[in-house]
């Protein structure tokens, strides 16, 4: 009996070894371990054995079962692993094929510039204010210290729609309107982005429509040095911490003193190159201390309050930031142009 069991174990293990599918294994398992299998049969004859032999045979029979069962499991695992292996192999894809494209649009570069600048000034405590594009002569010129006969009106030939209404030539009228609303009580800290219009023929550097951002800070005791501080902070935020500003005297009717603000050239770090026309500096802003007449006209007491104002061309900032060579690109809306600003 013991021999028989040993024999059966050998046979079963050999058959299992030969098995080439899960089905084969299962057949072998049923054949040897099933209720009608030879081991059960052997055990049925146990009654004939002596009381001494019985446990030995029983134990062996269990061992044989366990061995076969273990082999079955081992073999099944092997098979399943192989099957999985085969499945994975058959499921292999070309990972170098392109992924499904996620459709994305893009921000207009001028919007990107405006929002970036807005965010910097919001961080400095400014509000963003807006106003009408068709303005009255009063707000566009007179309230900004440009009476009808002022020679500086020549600097900006404008589109009039009636005798005293025009397409605004600057966004400063928003400043005048906002100051009026404050009824002579500061502080006023605003930036005004928006479209402006001037009678210019469109070419690579001129556009009859363009965008400006003007800023205003009015409070008690505001100094020119504060203007320097705010613009310095802005320029370092926008262009980079290594950039510096330089002020040059200039003239604007609504500020006194007035300055042009240059930023050190980012290409040559001030050494002089083609971009900065060998000067090491690039003109980016106009600014100055708000003219007392402008303060007074807008309801502020110029003895108590002072302030500064500044203005910048959005196109110019975009040209500098992205190295664009023609201002008309901003308004042609060529998809190949716009698409490049997905990354901003």
């Amino acid at each position: 009996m013991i021999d028989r069991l040993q024999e059966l174990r050998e046979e079963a293990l050999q058959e299992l070894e030969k098995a080439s599918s899960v089905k084969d294994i299962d057949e072998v398992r049923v054949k040897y371990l099933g209720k009608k299998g030879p081991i059960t049969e052997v055990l049925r004859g146990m009654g004939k054995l002596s009381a001494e032999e019985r446990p030995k045979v029983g134990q062996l029979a269990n061992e044989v079962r366990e061995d076969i069962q273990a082999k079955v499991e081992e073999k099944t695992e092997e098979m399943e692993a192989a099957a999985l292996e085969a499945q994975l192999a058959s499921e292999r894809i070309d990972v170098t094929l392109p992924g499904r494209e996620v459709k994305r649009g893009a921000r207009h570069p001028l919007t990107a510039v405006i929002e970036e600048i807005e965010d910097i000034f919001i961080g400095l405590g400014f509000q963003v204010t807006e106003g009408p594009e068709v303005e009255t002569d009063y707000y566009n010129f007179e309230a900004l210290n440009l009476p009808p006969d002022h020679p500086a009106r020549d600097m900006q030939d404008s589109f009039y729609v009636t005798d005293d209404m025009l397409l605004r030539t600057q966004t400063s009228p928003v400043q005048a309107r906002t100051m009026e609303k404050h009824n002579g009580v500061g502080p006023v800290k605003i930036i005004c982005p928006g479209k402006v219009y001037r009678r210019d023929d469109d070419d690579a550097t001129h556009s009859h429509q363009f965008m400006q951002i003007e800023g205003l800070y009015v409070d008690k005791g505001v100094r020119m040095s504060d203007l320097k501080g705010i613009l310095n902070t802005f320029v370092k935020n926008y262009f980079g911490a290594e950039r510096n500003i330089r002020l040059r005297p200039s003239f604007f009717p609504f500020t006194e003193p007035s300055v042009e603000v240059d930023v050190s050239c980012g290409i040559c770090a001030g050494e002089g190159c083609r971009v900065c026309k060998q000067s090491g500096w690039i003109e980016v802003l106009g600014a100055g201390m708000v003219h007392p007449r402008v303060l007074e006209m807008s309801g502020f007491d110029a003895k108590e309050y002072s302030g500064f104002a500044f203005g910048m061309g959005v196109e110019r900032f975009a040209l500098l930031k992205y190295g664009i060579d023609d201002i008309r690109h901003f308004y042609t809306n060529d998809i190949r142009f716009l698409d490049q600003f997905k990354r901003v």
Partner: protein
Amino acid sequence: MLVSYEWLKEYVEIGDLTPEEVAEKLTRGGVEVDVIIPRSEGLDHVVVGYVEECQQHPNADKLNICQVNTGEETAQIICGAPNVAAGQRVAVAKPGARLPGGIKIKKAKLRGERSEGMICSLQELGIEQKLVTKEFIDGIYVFPEEAKVGEDAVEQLGLRDTVLELDLTPNRADCLSMIGVAYEMAALLDREVRHPGNDFHESEEAASDVVSVHIDVPEDNPYYGAHVIKNVTIKPSPMWIQNRLTAAGIRPINNVVDITNYVLLEYGQPLHAFDLHRFGSNQIVVRRAENGEKITTLDDEVRTLTEDHMVITNGTEPTALAGVMGGAFSEVQNDTTTILLEAAYFTPSRVRKASKDLGLRSESSIRFEKGIDSGRVEEAAERAVSLLEKYADGVVLKGKVHEDYRPKEHRTITTTSERLNQILGTDLKADEMLSIFRRLRLEAKTETEDRLVVNIPSRRPDLEIEEDLSEEVARLYGYDRIPVTLPEGITTPGSLTPVQKKRRKVRRYLEASGLHEAITYSLTSKKKTQQFLLNDVSGTVEVSLPMSEERSTMRTSLIPHLLDAVQYNQNRQMNDTAVFELGSVFIGEEGELTRQPEEKTMLGAAISGTWEVQLWQGEKTETDFYVVKGIIEGLFEELQFSHALSFTPSKKGELHPGRSADILFNDRNIGFIGQVHPRTAKEWGLKETYVFQLDLDLLLTEETNTLSYEPLPRYPSIARDIALVVNKDIPAAEVKEVIENAGGTLLKNVTLFDLYEGEKLEAGKKSLAFSLVYLDPERTLTDEEVTKTHENVLVDLKEKLDVELRR
């Protein structure tokens, strides 16, 4: 203003600075030098030569063979200029010279004859055609007798010089003169200014014996003076005057005209020389013109004047347009012997008016308009008189005739050093400020309590208030030295308004949805203001004197220019375009505008071509109505307005009648969506294109509830799907609405998941399949309850819309 470096040296010591350094100083000081122009870079080996002989070339009619003494030798030069002749002093470019046009001079043979150089015209030496005297414009230049043979011709012509082109701001009219620039330079360098001499002899006869002057309107003309110079000879002015005029961009004419121009440049004082014999009377009367009065100006144009303009007259007819241009008949000519020299101060606004109305600008009007130095009129006149005596051989009559209404008081500005420091954020002592004012030649003194009193000379009319003085202090002290501080007042948080935030949200959503932001022009054609309107517009906003019809009217819709953008891209093989724009449209009034037009912020979009493509997977979605509608639905969800959005068929003429809808927000029309009508698309040359436009002002000013969390369901929901057979013309939204109403509170969600139209159905029918989800948040629903409600739904559908279940 063109400033010759060599000329400027005459008034202020700048010899130790290069022209580039002078330019840098001026620019940093507030007088911007736009361009630095070297007048003759690398122009050498050009000398004054004497033409000893001049014979016709044996083999060429138009060429001459000249023997030219160049000081060291006599060279044979072939010259083709018509005006070459023996006995002339000419500019000879010797072999080795390189002329500004790039020509390199070499020994050569011309038609068999050797030529050892070139006799030059002024143009060939780099002088602009428009600055060359008429006499020499078509030929070579001939030096006057005074030129020494063998000398450097470039030097003789004043070309060893650099010109600085100033870009002056309107307040710095004082720098429209050499002396003005010299004052500026002297202040920047802390040096002295030298005025030119103006000595002359006067005859016994007095000017007042010959002529009188009367000013009719002193406000327009506070000062008018005239000198009389007799026995003048009209001839070319000396070379140095001609050279300086050329450097400043003014063509030499003759000695008298050149001298008035020279003094104009030197002092910034416009002068006018009349021929007294042609003047027509012995009285000068300055008055307003009469309406319709005519004058023929120096340029031979007949000008019709109005009473806004001012004229110089001989008592009867105008002889000059005051401050702008002289009249033709009293002009100085070659036979002129007696000159009436006008030196006046006309008010800026009066001259500006005439110059603007008549479209006539001159060196004179430019200066009067911006304000000349009223205190230097006489000095400038005397300078011109002294030059006329010297270079026109004139006899100067004693004294002058004049009327003078100029204010005698000088302006003073009183301030304190504390105030100026407060404006600038500096900490300068009164002494330092006084020193700056001294450099600027502004007389200043301190009074008690730190008070500064500054006298403003007439040459600086731009200095009016304390702030102007602070600017003078700042620019001379140096902006670089002003400290960098931050404001010390109340700090305030910066932020965007809710509308601005939502506007950014709209942009972000559309970008993420695959649309590119476009920005188009606000000015458009009249025709384009009549298309794609959200509502009828009461009127349009038109600009007076538009630059073109295409840019004549403010837009009333964003769509036309977006379609232009689609077309632009299609014309460049970019067929898949999806653009949006956020911008204003402008609504005027019927008839003339009486108030500012209404400006509405719109959101517009135009989408054409393939919407989505996965190339190698072979999947492709073409843009259709539902793609665009989905974008709008998503936008409303983003803004939390889904519940208030609905669509209803639209009747807009520019849209496809079967594929367009009005967009309703709380049942109010706020936009449209649809396929561009094939007829309209054809006009534009567009492929199938879809558009939408929304009134963003209405949408973004609507209050939004703050987003609050809805508890997750604790009980299971039960879903029932139904397929319905519906009459084709019943919109799906109507079916859905009936379902929702009948389903009551238990019905949580209704989703359309299938649409079928085809032969399996009776004609005129379509099948719609909906998935209905029932849920009670408080308990588990039973099947019976759901079945009961569901049956109500089916009954209502049958009763209200004659809808059957699909078998």
